[in-house]
């Protein structure tokens, strides 16, 4: 008990030094937490993706389209429950800075295949009835202050011109990981508008979304779809939604690796800082430890004192950092909503925080402890005065 009392008081004896060290650890834990959250939010789309949904796209590349006639054929394949389709629209709101995912879909089937986008029955009804209607995620609508019935114009990038829409519904995410920043409207609206300009470009679909009857059929159905369109003008590539989303992310894999490395470098730097603090502290206390050994306390007591002090400081910093992570992540996520629609600090990150703090605390204590134990009592006592 006395040992615990001494180690706690030692930890906060030099208030300025302990305070600065704790602050340093807190900032490092905060940075670590945010960087990890960036990475996991990057993968959030993958995590949220369902394995019982397939996505079919042009086998050559995502930028090539497929004929609308495939819809009927896919529907007949065994194991397929429902098919929807859509195009990436790529429009911007007012100017390029206001970027968010927007696309057109076949609305009736889309809403059924994606039950995680929760829409009230009334809004669903008016949306389906209005060809120019669109639905926005809760976060997106809040960001631009859109209310039901508002007219919104997007500037087309793939499909030039100004496109007018009316907000008919605001969806809420069913799960924490559901993206609430999407913008979707009627495929018919896009198709009929471009049909007037050039009939060639009409009747094209960017991707088909397929709901299957059982998740374990995913591989079979995907194979069957692609076989159906083998040797046709537009061959298809069908994969689970998860794999499809992963394909997007693979492109930015290098960036993710870089961020991951930075987050670990942060931990290593702070480890050096804490180790230095502990070395300084132990050097100052060599006399104290010598007195305790003189009185008959042993190496184990000295070990508990030094490791304990180190851990008290790192865990105090860790706790402060963890507490700061939540408001910081909220602010960060809010500012970068369009890039990271899902920005949630995971429990795993918190465990890693604690693990890192314990690791730092122990590693920083090893060398000072060895020194304090090895030095002879007589030598230790001679350092006093």
């Amino acid at each position, binding site marked *: 008990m006395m040992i615990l009392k*001494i180690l706690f008081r030692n930890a906060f*004896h030099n208030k300025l030094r302990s305070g600065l060290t704790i602050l340093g650890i807190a900032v490092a834990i905060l940075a670590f937490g945010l960087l990890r959250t960036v990475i996991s939010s990057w993968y959030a789309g993958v995590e949220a993706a369902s394995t019982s949904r397939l996505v079919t796209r042009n086998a050559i590349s995502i930028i090539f389209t497929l004929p609308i006639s495939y819809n009927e054929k896919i529907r007949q394949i065994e194991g397929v429950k429902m098919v929807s389709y859509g195009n990436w629209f790529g429009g911007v709101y007012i100017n390029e800075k206001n970027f968010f995912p927007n696309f057109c879909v076949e609305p009736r089937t889309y809403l059924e295949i994606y039950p995680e986008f929760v829409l009230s029955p009334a809004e669903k009804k008016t949306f389906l009835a209005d060809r120019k209607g669109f639905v926005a995620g809760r976060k997106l609508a809040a960001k631009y202050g859109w209310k039901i019935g508002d007219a919104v114009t997007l500037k087309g990038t793939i499909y030039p011109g100004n496109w007018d829409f009316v907000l008919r519904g605001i969806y809420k995410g069913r799960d924490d990981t559901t993206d609430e920043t999407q913008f979707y409207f009627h495929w018919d609206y896009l198709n009929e508008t471009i049909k007037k300009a050039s009939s060639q470009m009409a009747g094209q679909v960017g991707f088909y979304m397929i709901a299957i009857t059982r998740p374990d059929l995913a591989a079979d159905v995907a194979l069957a779809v692609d076989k159906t369109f083998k040797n046709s003008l537009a061959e298809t590539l069908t994969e689970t939604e998860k794999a499809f989303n992963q394909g997007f992310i693979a492109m930015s894999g290098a960036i993710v690796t870089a961020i991951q490395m930075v987050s670990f470098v942060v931990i290593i730097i702070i480890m050096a800082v804490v180790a230095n603090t502990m070395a300084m502290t132990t050097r100052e206390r060599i006399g104290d430890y010598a*007195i305790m050994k003189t*009185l008959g306390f042993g190496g184990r007591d000295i070990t508990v004192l030094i490791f304990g002090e180190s851990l008290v400081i790192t865990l105090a910093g860790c706790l402060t950092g963890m507490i700061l992570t939540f408001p910081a992540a909220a602010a960060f996520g809010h500012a970068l909503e369009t890039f990271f629609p899902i920005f949630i600090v995971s429990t795993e990150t918190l465990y890693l925080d604690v693990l890192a703090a314990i690791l730092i605390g122990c590693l920083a204590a090893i060398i000072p402890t060895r020194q304090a134990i090895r030095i002879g009592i*007589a030598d230790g006592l001679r350092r006093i005065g």
Partner: protein
Amino acid sequence: MAEQKQNIVEIRHLYKAYHRGSLVVPVLYDITFDIVAGEFLALMGPSGSGKTTLLNLLAGIDKADEGSIRVGDMDITALSETELAHWRANHVGFIFQFYNLIPVLKAIENVELPLHLTSLSKKERRDHAEMALRMVGLDHRMDHYPKELSGGEQQRVAIARAIVTDPTILVADEPTGDLDRVSAEEILAMMERLNAEMGKTIIMVTHDPRAAQRAKILRHLDKGYLTDDDSQNPL
């Protein structure tokens, strides 16, 4: 009368050298002497003569190269590190020049500290520590931290810590070396009382003739040699 008393410390042919790299620095040569129970001995000598080294050896915080030291009925040169630590906790009280209190502990906690190595209950520890502080006249300063006490007061706390375990011997290395004259006198008077009234055996290293005057026996150390045989304090 001295012959009737039993020896509490017996030192035989003690040699000690320090090693500085490949250099061997001899410090003590063939030291042999006895200390009888209830003695108050002052060890004097010029700086560097080996006083601290000798005190450390007989208090069991350093190891001799040759020779034997018996304290009570224990040959401490035969003990392992761990056994020595245990032995010190039970048999030696330490008083240092710089008081050497633990700065983060209050006076009472500093005095209680060595009792944590005993089997005493929490209440017994507290009672013993309070009594020791009362004996050095500091019971009203129990809850003060060392830095809130004067040098003389800190040394009195250190004395309380040294006697609280009721050790076989008390060792003091220049206990008044860092004190003003008045405080030094107080500390010496206190040690004299401990010796006279409670029969504590005290071995004190000192430079200060006034301190040596309080002791019953004087011994001189010069360049590692004990230069006189048993002599009653001539001062």
